[in-house]
Each structure stands twice: as C-alpha cells, then as structure tokens.
C-alpha cells in the first residue's frame, strides 16, 4: 500500500484524518514530554537546554509556597469532595421523591455549572466579604455581634473556596446520583417490599449495590477537579490572605510567569500531574477490574 500508487481521491481522506490526529497526538504526548523535560533544565525566562537533574524538584519542594499549596490541596480536595458529595446526594434523593416541578428544581441546581469559575469566584467573594456580604446582612437584621469573616481569616479562607466550589459542582454530583437512583431496578424494589424488607434492608441490598460504583466515579471526578482548581481560587482569594490559600496550580503559574522560572514551574506542573495520576491510575485499574469481572460473569 505505497502512497505513490494511490489516487489523489484516496490521499485526501488520509491527509484529512492524519493531520488532525498527528496534531492531537503531538499535543498530548509531545507537550507533556516537553514540560517533563524542561523540568530537568535550568530554564528561566526562556527554555535552556542544559541538564540539572532533580534540582528544580528539590528547589520547589523546599519553597514555602509549595508546602502550603501541598497541604492546602489535601484539605481542600478532601473537604470539597465530602461537601459536594453530601450536597449532591441530598439533592438527588430529594429530587427522586417524584416532586412536582422537578425540572425547575433541577435547572436551578445545575445552572452554576454553566457559569465560569471566575464569575463564581467574584460573586462569592462579594457574598463572603464581611464588610458587604452575608455578615453585613445578618448584622443589619439585628444580630449585631454575628461574625462570618472566613474569607479574610488565614486559617479559614480555604474553606470559602471549598464552599464556592461545592456550590458550583454539587449539581453535577446530583445529576450522576440521580441517574444512578433512577437505574435501580424498580421490580426488584417492589419484590423486596412484598417480601417484607424494611427501608434500611432495601437500601443495603438493592440500592447500594447499584449505585456504589457511582460514588467512586463521583469521588474521582471531584478529586481530579480539585487538583486542577485554579480560576476559582484566583477569583475568590487570589491565594490570600498572604499565601494561606495557594494551590499547586497557582504555584505553577507563579513560578512560570511571575517569577520567570520555567524550569521550576515545570517541575511544579509535573508534581501537579503526579497528584492527578495518583487519583486516576487506581481508578483506571478499578474500572479495568470491573469490566473484566462483568465480562467473566456474562
């Protein structure tokens, strides 16, 4: 099948497919490898092609910014995942009660997903600002010593990002859970009820086995979402007060474009990627195991 023997009519499709395919593969593989490689070079403002081994990594791991960011991402990731899952599950269970106006409620719970993180961050920044937001409202209603100033509190500002993130993403968790709840076999439920099984028993034996894989999927999606969080935190706290709410994604940007240290920034980006892989690879293995098991049982 040499190219020369093909007519132009056959060549065009080849070109039309392979050009974008090549661009895409170059993008996914080439760009990733390039950043991995830059992390081993002494690059500052422009890429330089020396070799410094792991020096960028050790330097990054010894900065205060990275250490705060690494601690923050653990707290943020866990709290965001927990709060979003709880809210999403609550919404899904509520909407599953054959409510009148279900569509309206669903539209309301999901609209935050259509809005950018920047808008979410800016608006929640106003609402959580003690001088003009919720605190002012409650104080104005007469509860004069009410305080809700987490946004300007070094130890608590991170939870404001958790809060805004959960507001935005919980509708998504709801949608996945709702789809799961609706896929529970109604006949099986009825049969269990006729057999006299109580609600707890039905829940344990019928509902949970159907929806537990959805829990895992939701956890993984939310965690990797947390690791990529950037815009929301920039718009809401910009890393502050001080640097108390920096996240790994912000450290990458800071080193690359504010300090002009491409090598260090790339090392931070690779560290961010490894966090992502630590979440995604076990999940990929789990999914593989699951499909294998289904195939065996079939």
């Amino acid at each position, binding site marked *: 099948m040499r190219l020369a023997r093909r007519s132009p009519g*056959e060549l*065009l*499709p080849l070109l039309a497919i392979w050009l*974008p*395919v090549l*661009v*895409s*593969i170059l*993008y*996914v*593989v080439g*760009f*990733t490898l390039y*950043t991995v490689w*830059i992390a081993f070079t002494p690059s500052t403002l422009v*890429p330089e092609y020396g070799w410094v081994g792991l020096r960028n990594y050790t330097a990054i791991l010894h900065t205060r910014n990275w250490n705060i960011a690494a601690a923050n991402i653990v707290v943020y990731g866990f709290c965001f995942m927990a709060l979003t899952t709880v809210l999403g599950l609550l*919404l899904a269970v*509520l909407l599953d009660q054959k409510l009148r106006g279900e569509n309206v*409620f669903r*539209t*309301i*719970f*999901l*609209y935050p*997903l*259509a*809005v*950018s*993180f*920047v*808008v*979410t961050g800016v*608006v*929640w*920044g*106003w*609402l959580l600002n003690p001088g*003009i*937001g*919720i605190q*002012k*409202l409650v104080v*104005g209603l007469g509860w004069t010593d009410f305080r809700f100033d987490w946004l300007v509190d070094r130890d608590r500002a991170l939870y404001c990002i958790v809060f805004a993130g959960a*507001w935005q993403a919980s509708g*998504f968790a709801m*949608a*996945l859970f709702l*789809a799961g709840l609706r896929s529970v076999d109604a006949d099986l439920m009825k049969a269990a009820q006729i057999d006299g099984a109580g609600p707890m028993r039905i829940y344990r034996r019928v509902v949970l086995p159907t929806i537990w894989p959805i829990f895992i999927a939701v956890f993984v*999606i939310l965690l990797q979402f947390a*690791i*990529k969080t*950037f*815009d929301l935190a*920039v718009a809401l706290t910009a890393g502050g007060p001080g640097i108390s709410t920096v996240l790994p994604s912000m450290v990458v*940007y800071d080193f*690359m*474009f504010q300090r002009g240290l491409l090598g260090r*920034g*790339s090392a931070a980006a690779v560290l961010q*990627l490894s966090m992502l892989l630590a979440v995604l690879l076990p999940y990929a293995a789990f999914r593989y195991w699951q499909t294998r098991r289904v195939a065996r049982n079939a």
Partner: protein
Amino acid sequence: MRSTRVVLYLLVTVLAAFYLLPLAVVALNSLRSTRDIFGNGMIGLPHGLELDNFSQAWSGLCIAEHCTGIRGYMLNSMIMTIPATLISTFFGALIGYAISLWRFRGDLWVFGIITLGVFLPEQMKLVPWVLVLRDLGLFNSVAGLVLIHVVQGLSFTTLFCRNYYVGIPQELMKAAKIDGAGFFRIFWRIVLPLSPPILIVTIIWQFTGIWNEYLYGVTFASGPNQPVTAALIALAVSVSEAPQYGVQSAAVLIAAAPTLFVYLIGGKYFMRGLTAGAVK
C-alpha cells in the same frame, strides 16, 4: 405522610434559594447604585433603578487603565469562542468518524492517546504553547487563543463523536462502500445527517468550556486582547480601591449571560455533555 411532603418541599425550596442566591444578588445589584450597595450591603432590594450600570459596564468601565468597558473583551470572547467551537467540533467529528467507522490498524491506540488529552492539566501545556505561539507569531492575539482551543478541544470532540459513531451499524457502511461511496461522501451523506444530537452536545460543551476558560486567556493575551473572563479578574483588581459594585455586577451578568442562555435553551444536551465529558 402529608406533613413529610410539606417538609420535603420546604427543604428543596430552601436549597433552591441557596443556589439562586448568587445569581439573584448579581441581578439585583446590577440595578443598584454603588452607594446603595456600600451602605446597605450586597444582599438587598434596589432603592431606585440604576439602569445606567449596564451602559457603564458595557462601554465606560475602566479595566486595567482602559476605560472602554467590557465591550471589547466580550467581542474577543465571541471571536475566540465561535470559530474555536466550530473548527474543533468539525475535526472531532471527522476523527471520530475515521476511528469508529474506518477501522485501521492501531485505531484504538490513536483514540486512547487523543482522549488522554482530556485529563491533562492545562499547566502541563503552558510552556510548549509559549514556544508554539511565539514561533507562529500568534502571541497576544485572539487567533492564538483560537488555535489553542481548537487543539485542546480535539480531545473532547473526538471522544464525544467517536463514542456516538460507534453506534452506527457497520452494515450501513458496507452498503455505502459497495455503492462506491468514498470517505467524504459517506461522511457528508450518511454520518453527518445522523449526527445532530451529538453535534449539539459537542457544540454546547465546547462553547461553554471555551467561553469560561481563564488560564490560557490570561497567559497568552494581555490588555485589550484578553477574553472577558480575564477582564473580570482585572476589573476586580482595578476597582478594589474605589469599588463600583453596581457597574461591576452588571459586567459580571453580561459576561455570564451567553453560557447561561445556552444552558437554558439546551439544558438536555448540556446534561449529556456533562456526563460524557465528566472527566474534565
């Protein structure tokens, strides 16, 4: 039984109010004067309508020393988002079609590698993009951002389209080939007419994602070339000394309007994209 229903509706209404709060606050504040907001707080009803906020936000507001409002940034976002959405969707459909219906050796590998792009954080691609944009002379231009979003978008659009086209029966392909139809003829005549559902999902997903994107916009464009998301951040910084909450709320509302509109008219398709592209 009756009372549990009442509690149920009460609970779901309270939650709905909580989710609507930010939108309601921005919408109301876009009609309030800054003095009113400053004195009475963010959350409150307007005392008199300040319709001037919108014209101020659109064409008078100062962002990073340019007092031309968000009009130019909205335009940037438009001429970035629309071409990038259409081009990435078109090529995604083409690659998805080739991978799913013209099976070739290694097609699953190609698909696997392309879809890996869905997981990669943007931070991993910043430095290579700097070089590519510099070499192409597209740094600090909307065209550069279009290129980025087309390439970035291919992973998603290919994933969506391939998974849809896999469901097209091979018999249809065989019959078309026997009739002598070639690659493009089958694409135009058979595959595309079957595609509207997935194309709508893909276009909505791409439009929302690109419109709302911030990191690339702020990294690869500056000043008046930035998309509106970056302008909103610059705005928040530049008004921190002399806040203009009313005008700023109007600006936020205008910036969020296109994707909210798309969500309201295409909610069903928006949802499908969400569950299919969940991994983002």
